[in-house]
Structures are given as structure tokens and as C-alpha cells.
């Protein structure tokens, strides 16, 4: 059997809003994801009866995003009952894993059309869930297993010599890029307006293009009294959902769907949990090696900004060109709804390939507990 190519044939996301006081705080995550999935189907015109499976990532799949939320979302969206659905969890890498799983399934001929995405309401389901109950023995043997993400960001800052001012300059740039992208209407195509009890929400809520290094310099360290990481250099707690339409290349061509890019290779890699933010380095190296490419061959890079410190450390380690990274801003500005980010940066990277007329794009992110995940997309 010859493996079949999997392509990205559409990308959509909800607006992203600050958890707790943002415009989506009172929206259930299952309702949010259902609106995005329905919106993506509407935008692409794909026939939902052809969908094999809906794969949704979620980092804390409990409460309103518990059970098998993917299946509930297909029912809320009133999709044909013939479609399957599963929820996957790789923390922040969840929805990128959803894409990877579809790629594998398509490759072996297990269906032609997959809806892959993710959702996280960090307003309604707390980070670490409602009932975090660490294993006392593991906690003792390997405290990093449960280490807070902010603490790992501090570790990366120290170990990879990323000072506070550099982090703040990076965050300011992220907000500035996102602000420009928004004002030029570059998010309009990807955002699915979300209906809430208080009206329609169609704009992101966390971008602060007016922020400056001076403003950020006034913030107190958020995780360690003498640390360098602040709320301004950490991605905000965010509510949001995202989805990409994954199909076989043959299906896309037969049905006249736009092909944003073909998945050329994928990779995951583990690392020490205490410095989980460095995960993208080994994952990206593995990814490029599999494709026989070097980083210089890549023109578009979506490097998730969980924290400025880890994004900068990864960029430095991988020798990335700053101009290629996160052209429309990253998670520091847009927010990081954990389960939804992976599909967002895959969809974004593919869209940017089209916009830039470039050939290769990489989407990569770090994963709590000590992992990296990466996707290489090729324009065809």
C-alpha cells in the first residue's frame, strides 16, 4: 500500500479571549468548539457526510470539556451521526497531535476527511483541573513531573541565559505584529464569529499593540520573587477553539478544495520536564531530519510562545531567523488556549505559506511535562 498524502484544506478558529473576564468566559467550551467546527465546514463547503472522524485536543478534558467532548461537539453541531469522534490529550500539543493522527489515518487509507482541532476554556476549567492529585511517590522522585509551567519558564530563562529585557522585547514585538495583522484584517478569514449570550464576538481580546518595554518592565515577577518571567512575558490564560480540515490530497483535488499545504513530516520528542519549554528544539531537529531538510529551507515558522523565555531559547538553539517567526504574532499576544493552540499554529503556518508564496513551514510547540511536537508543511 502506498501511503497517501494528507493536506490541509481549511483552517478556522474562534476569537481568543482572556480567561475569567474575557468575552468567552461565559461560553461553554463544547458550544465554542461546535461553533468553530460548524464554521469551518461552512467556510470550506466540505460535505460533512464525508467526514470520517472528528479529533479534538483538550489539555484538561473534564467538567464541561470532559466526557468525550469531541463526540458531544459533533452532536451539538448537528453533524451526521455517521461521523466518529475522539478527544486526545497531549496538553498544549493536543490539537497538533489530532492533526498528526489524521495524517496517519489518511496515509493508511482509513478515511479521506478529518476535522482536527482543539478547545480549552481556561475560564471554566482551571489549569491542572478541578482535582489535581499528584502521585506522592513520583512527586518525591521526580518533582519536575508536576512542576508549574511558570517555574519551567524560569528554569529555561536561567539555563539558556535569556534575560528579562530580551523577553520583554520579544513580547512587545509579538503584540505589535498581532496588532498590525488585526488592523490589516489578516485574521478575518480565520476567525469564526462566536454567538454568545451577550452578542457576537468576532475579534480577539488579548492583543495589546500599545504595550511597550517600559510598561512590561514595571510588572512584578509572576513565579519567583527574584525571577525574570512576568505576566507580560507569559501567554495569558485564554479561552478559545480551533480546527483544521485534513483530507487526502486526492479528495481535496476531486472536490475542488483549496490545498493550503501538504504535511511533509511530523515529530514528537521528550525532554526534561523541568525545562519543558525547550521541547521544540529536539522535535524540530527530528522533523527536519526526517524530511531531509535544514532549517534554512524553511520560510515560515510558527513557534508557540508559551513563554517568551522558552520561545527565545528555542529560536536561539535552532538558529531561527526572527523575521520568519510568528509573522502575525504569537501566543504572548493572541493567547494560548492549551488544547486549541496546536491546530491554530498548523493552520496559521499553512495559511502563511500561501500568503508568502513560500515552500516550507514549520509549526512547533512545547508541551508540559517535557515534550516538543512539530509539523512540517509543504506548499504544493
Amino acid at each position, binding site marked *: 500500500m502506498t501511503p497517501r498524502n494528507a493536506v490541509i484544506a481549511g483552517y478556522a478558529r474562534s476569537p481568543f479571549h482572556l480567561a475569567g473576564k474575557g468575552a468567552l468566559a461565559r461560553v461553554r467550551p463544547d458550544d465554542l468548539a461546535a461553533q468553530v467546527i460548524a464554521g469551518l465546514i461552512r467556510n470550506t463547503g466540505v460535505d460533512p457526510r464525508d467526514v470520517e472522524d472528528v479529533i479534538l485536543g483538550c489539555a484538561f478534558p473534564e467538567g464541561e470539556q470532559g466526557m468525550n467532548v469531541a463526540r458531544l461537539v459533533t452532536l451539538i453541531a448537528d453533524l451526521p451521526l455517521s461521523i466518529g469522534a475522539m478527544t486526545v490529550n497531549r496538553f498544549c500539543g493536543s490539537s497538533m497531535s489530532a492533526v498528526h493522527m489524521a495524517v496517519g489515518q489518511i496515509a493508511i487509507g482509513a478515511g479521506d476527511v478529518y476535522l482536527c482541532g482543539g478547545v480549552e476554556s481556561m475560564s471554566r476549567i482551571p489549569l491542572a483541573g478541578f*482535582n*489535581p*492529585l*499528584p502521585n*506522592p511517590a513520583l512527586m518525591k522522585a521526580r518533582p519536575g513531573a*508536576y512542576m508549574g509551567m511558570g517555574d519551567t519558564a524560569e528554569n529555561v530563562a536561567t539555563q539558556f541565559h535569556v534575560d528579562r529585557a530580551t523577553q520583554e522585547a520579544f513580547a512587545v514585538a509579538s503584540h505589535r505584529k498581532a496588532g498590525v495583522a488585526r488592523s490589516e484584517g489578516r485574521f478575518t478569514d480565520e476567525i469564526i464569529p462566536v454567538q454568545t449570550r451577550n452578542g457576537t464576538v468576532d475579534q480577539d481580546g488579548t492583543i495589546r499593540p500599545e504595550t511597550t518595554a517600559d510598561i512590561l518592565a514595571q510588572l512584578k515577577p509572576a*513565579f*519567583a520573587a527574584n525571577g525574570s518571567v512576568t505576566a507580560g512575558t507569559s501567554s495569558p490564560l485564554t479561552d478559545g477553539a480551533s480546527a483544521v480540515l485534513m483530507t487526502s490530497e486526492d479528495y481535496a483535488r476531486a472536490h475542488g478544495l483549496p490545498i493550503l499545504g501538504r504535511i511533509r513530516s511530523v515529530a514528537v520528542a521528550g525532554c526534561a520536564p523541568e525545562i519543558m519549554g525547550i521541547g521544540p528544539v529536539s522535535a524540530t531537529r527530528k522533523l527536519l531530519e526526517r524530511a531531509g531538510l535544514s532549517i534554512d529551507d524553511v520560510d515560515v515558522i510558527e513557534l508557540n510562545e508559551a513563554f517568551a523565555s522558552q520561545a527565545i531559547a528555542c529560536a536561539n538553539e535552532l538558529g531561527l531567523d526572527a523575521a520568519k517567526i510568528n509573522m502575525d504574532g504569537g501566543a504572548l499576544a493572541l493567547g494560548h488556549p492549551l488544547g486549541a493552540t496546536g491546530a491554530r499554529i498548523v493552520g496559521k503556518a499553512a495559511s502563511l505559506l500561501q500568503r508568502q508564496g513560500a515552500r516550507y513551514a514549520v509549526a512547533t510547540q512545547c508541551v508540559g511535562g517535557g515534550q516538543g511536537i512539530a509539523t512540517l508543511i509543504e506548499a504544493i
Partner: protein
Amino acid sequence: MTGINKVCVIGAGTMGAGIAAQVANAGVPVLLLDRAADNGENRNAIAQAAIASMLKASPSPFMTAASAKMVEAGNIEDDLARIAECDWIVEAVTERIDVKQALYARIDSLHVPGSAISSNTSTIPLARLIEGRSDSFATAFLITHFFNPPRHMRLMELVAGPRTQPAVAARVENFIDRQLGKSVVRAKDSPGFIANRIGAFWLLTAVNAALDLDITIEEADAIGGRPMGIPATGIFGLLDLIGIDLLPLLRDSMQALLPPSDPFHAAIRPLPIIETMLAAGTIGKKSKGGFYRINREKGKSREAIDLTTGLYRAAIKPGPVAADLRSLIAGRDKQGAFAWAVLGQTLAYAASLVPEAADDIVAIDRAMKLGYNWKYGPFELIDRIGPASFTARLHAEGAHVPAFLAAAGDRRFYQGVDDELRHFGIDGTYHTIARPDGMLSLEDVKRTSRPLLQNAAATLWDIGDGIACFEFTSKVNAIDMATLALLDQSITLVAERMKAIVIYSDAANFSAGANLDTAVKAIDAGDWDAIEHLLGEGQRVFKAMKYAPFPVVGAPAGLALGGACELLLHADAIQAHAETYIGLVECGVGIIPGWGGCGELLHRWTAFGDLPRGPLPVVARAFEIISTATVSKSAAHARELRFLAPSDGITMNRDRLLFDAKAKAIALVENYAAPLPPTFRLPGPSGHCALTMAAEGFHRRGMATDYDLVVSDALSQVITGGEKDIMDVISETDMLALERRSFMQRVRDPRTRMRIAAMLETGKPVRN
């Protein structure tokens, strides 16, 4: 007479916004209007900003953040017609008669008969305010003069004019009394009403006397404060607190409104020192300094103004002052001269205001006690001095003796006869002081009955209808072995002969908790057995009270901390005054709640917590509240913290607390069954891990000290169930044993002793 279901407050300045907040605190919707904002699209911006700023203030005028949702912002231009929705319209705009009258003309045309209209004016006579208004307006109009801040100041002076419908005034009075919790004093329509007229006279007289007698401000406050039953801020400290800029305003309006014959004018003279301070912007606590200031450049040292030079100098500690009022004013030194100059003139002035400012002395005394926090009113002070000698001294010095004072002669202004307390009236006879419906005073009970039980720390009273009242009587109402012993005896007595217990104190604060003084002595003596015995007795007696065959109602007001909070958590019900500050603060002094508080709070969060399911949320919430020694900012906030259960009651008016608590006890008597002991399912070591991670995070961020970590670990051990597995069912007795173990470990730690000692010395927790 119908109730008041919606209120409109016009004017979102300090007073208007504060009144609106208190209406919201009472759970009544309120429309707050101010001018329409000139620029920008949001025409309600001014009123909205007032609400936002109140939410940020500390202490906030709001009792909980949720109360703020009861306030709707609007503007006068667009929304004035909406006064038709409201049963009471309160005007609190700027103190200018032309502004008020112009607003009233508009209200007059929109006003719906049946609703009340009042002004919060502090000086303008009612007769002037209603000039030119319709009969419908005038009959609905009265003055409701609140004090600043409206949430915390208990006095509200009510002035009804000759045309005001008595039913309208009664309806507003009832609402302000029962729902806003203010003590309503009926004043006459005279300038400045009661409290500010006497208060301004007193302050001016005292400043004049200090200048004349060359008394330092520290001495003036030491003499003019505590010995007279006046808060320790005295005169100059009080001026700093209220704002020195207010004094000339009050003085000028009094000067303009009072007839030339009024003795007030004699107290007015140029005060260059105050003019200089106003010009320098040093107007008290709301600025960079006042008569006193903290000099941060000199290591936060306290400085005071020298009245002669007008310059700041290091604050001095005044010498000893005679504590007895009579010997103080009899003194032939400067202290005595100052004390007499202030008191003699002020009390004589107060006596001259019957019946001009109030119909009787009770109103005047209550106004000064509630409006200026005097322990005794002017007439109570004259009684303490002795009316005859007071009047004789005025005579001897050639001072004016008011007719009312002369009429009293050598008779006291108050006298207790049989069961009654009476006051001297303007007609020269005594009149019974009646308690309004719904008020019960422990003072009255004490005057007319003997204790059922009594020892050095507590007393049990019979407050009628088979209800006993357990009263703390120790210093700061601290709980020790004697308290527990009397509570134990009370349980036996009530089980035999009575129906229920109310736990209550007339004091400003319910109880500061366990007696730390005794604890530190036992620690120093290494008498761990004594400490463990006290711990065990507290556990035993509190549980005996909880499972007694009769209901127990806790009735706290003010602070109810540590052991006192634990006691309340064991009651069947709580009837709390709205201003109740309750918390399990043990961790602040290095220990954990050991009298059953951990288990009781866990149980409350389990029963009424409204938290997600699973073993951790309840435990994590209780951990957060106890480990950070969270104290509620109001009774409503205590309900959010679950120190109060949903069925517990809140009384807005402090004077009504004991009556309400007794009524609650009576309601529980019929068909009473003691509660069943709760059982717990706790997360065990896994939960302990989770809480440890959280605590360590706070420690890394510098928000918890080294010893905080140790103490919170001890707490975490208890509330996660120790070594128990998540599948085990844990009994209340198991919880008590866990508390006992963790408590005894912590109490032996020298760092705990350090914390307790610092608390006793400074009243503040030490961050070790």
C-alpha cells in the same frame, strides 16, 4: 405602610455613592445618578467611575463585590424620570441651596406621589429647601443626614418638617434603621442639626484652648481623648482623620446660619495655623500629612506640628493624664485647665441646644456617641462630673448657664428607677426611655436581673422566653479555660431548665479568640500538658455544645477570630451583625485551628460550597482560607467564605442583633434535633502533594515565608486527612485527632512562640 424596594441616589460624590453602596449592601436595587459626562459617548461615566472607585477602596463601601451589582449608574439629564421607579429618592448633590433647589424643581415635576424624597444636606434648613415646591413635594420631603462613611458610621439624623407626612418619615426611618442598619436620631430643623453643630463647636473650642494654653497637640489629644471617653484620636488626630479642610467649611456654614446670639460665634476666631496648613495642602490623612505625619525620609518616624512655629517636629509622648474625669478637670495645672476649657464650654453648649436642636437629651447623647464615637454623650458626661458642681463652676466663672441646665439643678440627667431608665425632660420631669420594638439590650437585662452563672471570663443571663445568653466578659473577650468551664456548666444548666443559648457580647468585638497570653506563658514554662489539656477541653466542650439537646445561636459583631470563629462554627445557627469580621487566623500565629475549626469549615464547604465535585476542591478552598488567615470583610463576605451557612442570618442594625439572635433561637426550639456528626472523604497524601505544590509556588513568589510553608504543611496534613486513603471514611473524631497532632507539633516550635509574642506585643503577625 409599604416597604422601600428601590432607591434613587442623586449625586455620586463620597456621600451619595456611599449611601448608594449601603442600600446595595442591604440587597435593595439602587439607581445612582450624577451629571452626564460632557465628553465621550458614555454619559453615565461619572456615576460608573464612582462605583468602580468604591470597589477598589479599602475598606470598601461595599460589603461584597456582588453588592456592587445592585447599583445601576445613570445620569441626571437622561434618567431623572426614572425616579418614578423608586420608593425613595435621596439627594446628595453639592451643598449649595441654588443647586439643590434647581434639582428639586425638576424632581417636583417628575415625582410620583407615594415615594419619599430626602436631602443629605448637613447644614441647610429644610424650610429653605422646600421653598417654592408643590404640596406633593413638600409632604414627601425630609432630611436624612448620613455621616461619612455611610457604611461604617452608625448615626443618621432625620429631620421631618411641619409639612412632612408622618407616614413618609416613618417609612424612611424604618428602612434606614432596619435595612441600612443606621441608628436614626430625630433632629429639629436647626442649622447643622445635632452632631456636627456640637462637634464643630467642640473642635474649634479645643483648638482655641490648645493655642491659648500653649498645649502641644499630643497633650491635647491625650487629655481630650480617652479620659473623656472620646476616641484616642482626640481632637487633632480626629481633624487629620476627617480632613482639616472640613473644619472651615463647617465653621463658615454655621457662622452664616446661626443667629448672632448663638454661643457658637464666640468659638470662631482667626486660626492662622489652619490657614497655613490648608495653603500647604497638609490637610490630614487624605493628603501627605496633617497635624501628624509619618516622615518616610526619616525612617517612617512620626512627627507632629508645633502649634507655635507651625513646623513639624518629632512627635512627643505626652506625660500621664488623670484617668478620672472629675480629678482631670479639677486639676490646677495646664492639663486641668485645658480639659475644663474644652468640656465646660462644649457641654454647656450642648445643654443650650435642648429643645432647639432636639426634643430631648437622649437624642443629643446618641448623636454624639454614634456620630463622633464618644463613649458618653454630653449629658452622660455632665452626670459623671455631677450636674450641680458642673453648673456651679460655670456660675463661679461667670459663664452663661443654659436654662435647661439651670432647670436640672442638682438632679441627674439620667436615673434608673426599678426596671426603667429615665431621662430628665424639658418639662422638668423624668421620662421613661423606651426601647423600640425589635431591640433587646443586654444592658437592660443586667440592670434588672442576676446572672444564672458567672465566673471571671463569662456570664450566663436569662434573656426571657427560656433563652439564655452566654456573654464573654474577659479582656478582649478572649477564650480560656474559665470560658470553656462556664460554657460547659451553661450547657448542663440549659439542658435542665431552659430552651436555648445565644452567644453574644455587647462589646465592639465578639472575641479575639483563644487567650494567647495564657498560651505564651505555658509555652515558656514548657507546660505542654496544660496546652494539650486546653486544646482537648476546647474540642470536648465545643462538640458538647454542638450535640447538646437544645439549639445554640452565635451572635457575633465586629471581630470573631480564631477560637471564637471555631466556637461559632459549632453553633446550630449564626445571626451576625452586618459588620462582622470573622476568620480562622491561627496560621498567622504559627498554629492551626485546633478546636474543631478545620473539620467544621470543611463540612460547611462540603454542604454548601457549590464547588466542582471530587475530593480536592473543598479541601483546597478550606486550605486557602485557613492558611492565609482570611478574615471576612463583612458578614455577607463571611457567607461567601462559608463561615456563615445560607440559613444563617445577618442583622444590619447593631442594636437589633441580640433581639434577632434570640428570635432565631426561639424559632429553632420547636422540633429541635441535634445534628448528626459528619463524615469526610478526603484525598489523603495525594491531596497533600497538591496543596504542597501550591504553597511552594507562593513561597517561590515571595508571598509566603519559610515558616508559613511549615505551618501550611501542618494544616494541609489535617485537612487532607493525614495518611488516610481516598477510599477511607473519616470521622469527626479522626479529624479532631489530626488537628491535635498538628497543633501540638507547631506549638512546640520556637518560631510559633515568636509569632504569638509579636502578636501580643504589636497586634500584627510577624513574617518569620
